[in-house]
Every structure is written in structure tokens, then in C-alpha cells.
């Protein structure tokens, strides 16, 4: 019979500085993959025709990256996802694979 011991890293005193729990143990979504909070600039709109910009937020397999990686707010992440899906429909971006 094997007993598994769960190691949660509780021995280390983690805090907001090292990306650890903050605000009652809730971990921040951002900064874990090096992504900072990102704003939408007027010269780079989240539009389905702006393929060069949208391609930055798509993985090598063609999947839309998460908010953790893109750094967008919830509203802008939805705009990003919709723009990528529209670009896919008119064959500007692939559903699967590289561009």
C-alpha cells in the first residue's frame, strides 16, 4: 500500500513578491509567464484584418493563448478571441497549425 504525500511547497514563505498567494491566498493570473498587463493600442486594433498582430497571440498549433500569456483584460481577451475566430473563417488564419 502506497501513501502519497502531497507537497504544496508550504514550507516556503511565499508572498506577492514572488508571485505567491496574495489577497487571502489567491494567486495572481499575470506575470507567471512573463506577460505584463497589456493594453490595446489604437495603431494595433484587435481586428480580424490585423493578422500580423493577431498571430502573436496564437500558439504554434494555432490555439488562442490564455489571458495569463496575453496579459489582456477580460474584455479585450474576448475581442481577441472573436477576431481570431473571424480571421479563421475567411482563411486569413489557420484553424490548426502554423501560418
Amino acid at each position: 500500500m502506497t501513501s502519497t504525500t502531497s507537497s504544496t511547497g508550504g514550507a516556503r514563505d511565499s508572498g506577492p513578491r514572488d508571485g505567491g498567494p496574495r489577497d487571502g491566498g489567491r494567486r495572481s493570473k499575470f506575470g507567471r509567464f512573463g506577460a505584463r498587463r497589456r493594453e490595446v493600442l489604437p495603431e494595433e486594433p484587435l481586428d480580424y484584418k490585423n493578422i500580423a498582430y493577431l498571430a502573436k497571440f496564437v500558439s504554434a498549433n494555432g490555439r488562442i493563448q490564455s489571458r495569463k500569456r496575453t496579459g489582456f483584460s477580460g474584455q479585450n481577451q474576448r475581442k481577441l478571441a472573436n477576431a481570431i475566430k473571424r480571421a479563421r473563417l475567411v482563411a486569413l488564419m489557420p484553424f490548426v497549425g502554423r501560418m
Partner: protein
Amino acid sequence: MQRTRTYECMCLLDNREVRKGWQPLKEAMLGLFQKHGAKILSGKRWDERRLAYSIKGQPRGTYLLIYFTADTQGLTALRRDLQFNESLLRYLLVDCDEVPQTAYEPEGDFDVNAIPADDAPSPAPEAAPEVEVSSTRGAGKEAADADDTTETTESTTEAGS
């Protein structure tokens, strides 16, 4: 209740039809919108490019971007007509809050004969990986299959007990 809105339509046109003449095809497309009561604000070629995936065997296509205002009630009939149009490979019809200034700029010259051949051979595939790598991958797959089998057996045993 009638309500007029501004829309943006990106039409992906078949290059076989584009080669027969750009202006007649463009006018035919704009006429299709006007037939359903749309008022064309702008309609010009957006780009001619290789598609991310081939549609109806066509690896390339020409995009026509149209901005128009139309009654919301007449949009269903317009969509139906667009779906039946054989020179259209795809279309995307979305709401548009504001027409960009670039839409009103004149369309550049478009030489239909300069469109690359659609049946251009695709680039040669890369050389096959080394034998050792492929054998390793095969071994890994076999191992994974074996694990799957084991799990299936275990689950069967548990279900039986």
C-alpha cells in the same frame, strides 16, 4: 421595426472568376448588395493572397472589402444570395461601428494577369528525420500503447471485482 445599420462585408472571391475580369466581377458583387437595398459606402479590393487553408481546391483568393448601410430586415435575404453566389468562396458579414478613412481611398491598380498560378507546386517536403529518432518515437508510442492496455486491464479488473 425598420432600422438601418452600417455593415462590413469581407468577400473572398474565387481567383478563377477574378481572372476573367476584376471590374465586372466587382460591379456584380456590389450590384448584389444594392439589389437588397444596401447603400454602398465603399467597396474595394483588400488583398490577393495565399489562403491559410485551401477552399474548393483554391490555395489563393482575392478579398473584396465592402462597407454599406442596410436595413436590418433585408439582411437575411442578402446572406442567402451570398451563399448561392458561385464566385464567392467565403464571406464574413459583421457590424461596423465606424468606417475607417482608408476605405475611402482609391483602389490601387490590380493586374489580374499577375496573380500567381493556383496550381503552383507546393514546396518540397523536408527530409525525413533520422532513423534513430523515428525508432525512438515508435518505441515511445508502443510504450504508451502498452500503458493504455494496462490501464484498461486494471479498470476491467476493478469493474469485475
